[in-house]
């Protein structure tokens, strides 16, 4: 062989071998740190899932060594240049049965611990905290079933980082405005469903990954041992911003959790008061436009785009569209109630009447729609009362 080719082949090859050697010499703990592998996680279940994974991985390695070992040994030992003659026989039932039964036995042996773990994972009984998790395009909604606390959890990574005009932060695309706070050491049950399309609620460190399906409730659970922040993502392709609806679980000690709950309940009352005040006060057209622009950027621009042009045919343009330049009531209605069966969700429970009034006013006057209309919070309230 041409020596230059040899050298060219050798350099990367030896580097690869070195890397493999370094990896194989690392202690077990360090191997778990290498992000190539799945995380051990922070629950007993996630630990047994990890252990199962490693056990099965090493079984596969052993099988590969034996099978390829025999194969390569045969290729080399019985090579033609040594005068090997091919055997001509048709079958060997005994050998065939053995190589069918051994894999079967290995599979069954692996199924035993796997089943034990699965049964534990499916046992959602006796939970101390129940949280309903609902997937939306493209955010999560969390509702603490016996606590009267609920909120949306939106991606909080600034647009500039996504558009590469700002440096990316440490938890780029894995950070939210409102994290899901849960107590440590308690069994938390997640009741997972969806408002629109199929999503999947996936937090690797909890070993929880469950499809969120509209009209169904899937259950899962976790007991987190250590306080900490654990991050996950939607794991079922759900449309344009599938990669922009992360999950952040913030596990706190039971005392801190109780405090957080109280604070959240207080915050809710404050927000209700603020919303009531905002509805009651009079807004100028300019104020509504300014507020509406903010609401639009936060709640609507993902689909209808900052320019209002949407992404037809999936997300309609709002520029001179029939509803944004037509009947005001129809406009309020589609924002408050949404359009069932489409991505246009009901914003009535996500926005206050003042915010709806602002965003409708904004849409009716931005991008050259110039209807001159002003929609007040009172208009929205009257519409809701109908």
């Amino acid at each position, binding site marked *: 062989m041409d020596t230059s080719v040899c050298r060219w082949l050798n350099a990367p090859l030896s580097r690869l071998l070195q890397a493999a050697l370094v990896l194989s010499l690392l202690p077990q703990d360090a191997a778990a740190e290498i992000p190539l592998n799945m995380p051990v996680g922070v629950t007993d279940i996630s630990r047994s899932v990890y252990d199962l994974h490693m056990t099965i991985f090493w079984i596969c390695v052993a099988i590969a060594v034996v099978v390829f070992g025999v194969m390569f040994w045969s290729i080399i030992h019985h090579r033609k240049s040594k005068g090997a003659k091919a055997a001509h026989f*048709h*079958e060997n*039932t005994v050998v*065939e*049965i053995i190589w*069918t039964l051994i894999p079967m036995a290995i599979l069954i042996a692996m199924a035993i611990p796997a*089943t*034990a773990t699965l*049964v534990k994972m499916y*046992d959602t009984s006796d939970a101390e905290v129940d949280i309903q998790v609902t997937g939306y395009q493209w955010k999560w909604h969390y509702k603490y079933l016996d606590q009267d606390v609920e909120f949306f959890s939106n991606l909080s990574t600034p647009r500039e980082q996504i558009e590469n005009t700002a440096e990316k932060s440490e938890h780029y695309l894995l950070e939210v405005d409102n994290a899901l706070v849960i107590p440590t050491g308690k069994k938390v049950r997640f009741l997972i469903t969806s408002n629109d399309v199929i999503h999947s609620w996936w937090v690797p460190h909890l070993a929880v990954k469950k499809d969120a399906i509209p009209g169904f409730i899937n259950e899962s659970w976790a007991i987190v041992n250590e306080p900490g922040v654990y991050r996950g993502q939607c794991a079922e392709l759900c449309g344009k911003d599938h990669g922009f609806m992360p999950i952040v679980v913030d596990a706190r000690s039971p005392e801190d959790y109780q405090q957080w709950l109280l604070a959240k309940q207080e915050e809710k009352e404050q927000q209700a008061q603020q919303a009531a005040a905002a509805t009651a006060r009079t807004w100028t057209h300019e104020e509504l436009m300014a507020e509406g622009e903010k609401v639009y950027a936060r709640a609507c621009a993902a689909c209808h785009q900052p320019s209002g042009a949407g992404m037809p045919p999936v997300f309609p343009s709002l520029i001179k569209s029939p509803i944004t330049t037509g009947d005001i009531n129809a406009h309020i209605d589609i924002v408050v109630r949404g359009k069932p069966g489409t991505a246009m969700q009901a914003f009535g429970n996500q926005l206050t009447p003042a915010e709806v009034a602002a965003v409708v006013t904004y849409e009716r006057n931005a991008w050259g729609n110039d209807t001159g209309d002003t929609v007040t919070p009172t208009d929205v309230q009257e519409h809701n009362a109908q």
Partner: protein
Amino acid sequence: MNRFFSLLKSVTGAFLGVQSGKQLDNDAEEKSVWPFVITGIFMTVLLVIGIAAAVRIVLTNISG
């Protein structure tokens, strides 16, 4: 009885994916396909019942 045993052997071979040439020649003696079909269905039912029973036993024993 001998014939039934031979059918059973053929169908089990088909389930496992292992069959000997001798058994194949033996099967060719049969005049009709129906004995194989019926034995096949019978064994499938047995397999399904067997799996269902295994699952039931496991579930009652593990989850308690």
